[in-house]
């Protein structure tokens, strides 16, 4: 699964397709900026993100470009540090979702056995609860550690992925080349890996971006609610909520992390939108 996906992502058609539209170009630019800040920003931070340096909620000035936060820490430094956690958690959650949900979808879509209805019914149950509620419940039960956050987010993203992969698999399962492989006695595993997967990787790539951005939203929201990553760790979502007390004196303490999150998500969304459009056009879909 990951091999086919990696080659798809590496291929020039992927990036070329995205960069052919204006929306895609803007999205790619925003994505690179936000991810660059999230991963490498900390090496340019002027201060430690944890040190109290002055009056809480001080407006910009005195060498603090974005002012100070609710306990007097440098907002710029915290913003430069605060993206990696969310990006890392959401990325890992998306990857795990695809490994598990994709496998479920492949198996369910390819088997005519009782497996398909069983898998799909259990997924229907997951869909009857609001996503954030599932995460809240799991955090209540198992605490808000990174492992729980990743597992809970994956669980929430899983039904959608399984459904999409399943219907795409069903679409190619009756094609000639798959039937030929069945006829010559290939193992199911080999058929799924060699015949089915390469032919649904376009659908998967188009869906990947949407899941990733939803993962970012969920993780950031949980952190915002105060039940995910805990203080004093710098995190964009958490920064937005903890600095609400200094809204009047230094609104930048809230706006900076909010805008960075927005840039990251909008970048991902514009890229996946551009990819989906490009794919529709080249593969003759509506």
């Amino acid at each position, binding site marked *: 699964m990951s091999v086919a996906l990696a080659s798809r992502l590496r291929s020039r058609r992927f990036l070329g397709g995205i960069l052919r539209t204006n929306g895609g170009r803007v999205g790619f630019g925003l994505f690179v900026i936000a991810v660059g800040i999230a991963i490498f920003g900390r090496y340019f931070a002027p201060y430690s993100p944890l040190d109290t340096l002055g009056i809480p909620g001080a407006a910009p000035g005195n060498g603090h470009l974005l002012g100070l936060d609710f306990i007097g820490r440098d907002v710029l430094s915290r913003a430069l540090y605060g993206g990696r956690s969310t990006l890392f958690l959401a990325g890992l959650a998306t990857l795990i979702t695809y490994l598990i949900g994709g496998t479920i979808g492949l198996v369910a879509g390819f088997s005519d056995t009782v497996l398909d209805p069983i898998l799909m019914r259990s997924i229907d*149950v997951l869909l009857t609860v609001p996503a954030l509620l599932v995460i809240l419940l799991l955090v209540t*039960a198992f605490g808000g550690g990174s492992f729980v956050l990743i597992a809970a987010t994956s669980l929430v993203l899983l039904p959608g992925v399984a459904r999409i992969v399943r219907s795409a698999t069903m679409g190619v399962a009756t094609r000639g080349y798959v039937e030929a492989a069945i006829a010559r006695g290939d193992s199911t595993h080999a058929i799924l890996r060699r015949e089915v997967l390469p032919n649904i990787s376009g659908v998967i790539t188009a869906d990947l971006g949407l899941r990733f951005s939803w993962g970012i939203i969920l993780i950031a929201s949980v952190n*915002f*609610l105060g039940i995910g990553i805990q203080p004093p760790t710098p995190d964009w979502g958490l920064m937005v909520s903890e600095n609400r007390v200094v*809204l009047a004196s230094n609104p930048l303490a*809230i*706006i900076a992390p909010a805008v960075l999150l927005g840039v990251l998500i909008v970048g991902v969304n514009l890229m996946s939108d551009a990819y989906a459009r490009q794919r529709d056009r080249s593969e003759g879909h509506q």
Partner: protein
Amino acid sequence: MVGSQLGLAPDLEPEIPTVVAPGMPGRRVHIHPAALFVLKRLAAGVLTLLVVSVLIFICTSVIPGNAAVITLGKSATASSLQRLEATLGLNRPLYQQYLSWLGGILHGSFGDSAVALAHHQVDPSIASSIKNPLINSFILGGITAILLIPLTLVLGVLTGIKANKAVDHAISLPSLVIAGLPEFVTGSLLIYIFFSELNLLPPVSLVPPGQSPLATPNILVLPVLTLLAVAVGSGIRQVRLGMIEVLQTDFVQFARLNGIGERRVLVRYAMRNAIANSIQTIAQNLQYLVGGIIVVEAVFAYPGIGTYLVTAVLARDTNEVLAASIILAALYTVINIGADLLVVFLVPKLRTELV
């Protein structure tokens, strides 16, 4: 086929619409297909809700500290803990606890709040403490829904008709951007604009105890705007796609070729057939409100069911978490069933095809 297009569960697809009535051996009673569909859909809804309630119950019962620990706090001794656990019924097997909890709900009782017990409040029952948050949330959600439905339909149909023209781009691109943002980002930006910069609206939506949020309508503006931003944006996209699809069907083309006026083609032919799709979209957005309200209420400190739930999660008050969760899950399911039924009744074709 039709079912999967509408997002209905595949087990609702065609089946013989006759059942053998119990107690009347050999005589086949014909139940109207639509009635059978309603019954099956309701039964499926109740069943999933039961499964969900079990899962929610299990989730909250694996927490190390139970309600008794929270109630007694630091003053807990082993013997006082045991006594309280016995009074609260926490020493019984899990399935017995579940059944009595379920029985309580059916009688309108959600048990007592552990935190309220710990503070020796006069009335620790959740049923009374959850009432006002629930009403507040219904007000917030209701106002949003009333604005959401026409906005989604009008903008969606408009962009669908004008697909790939300037009007479409002017609406579709911003809605793609705005709909993708998390509620708390949108909310914070709105607070910045309308409070920090313009000083027009309050940054928090506090409601004094015993008062209705409708007494001070201006506190509702920003929360409603935030919810609308996310829900309308995603709704427009789907209604737009449905409209484009219908406009390409043969029978719309033939209506045009027959010389029927474009307005009539759009209203009588295209839009009527885009209805099924749109209802599902609206239902999804109403469902979204049930979850979206959790974060939006937190952004504006609005005292609704979402704030209630988050506070309960942070306090590890299991009974409160259970009550709020099951109410939200029930709402979610009700909206889902309602939409499925509405579609079947509004689109006659489906009535015969589905059942």
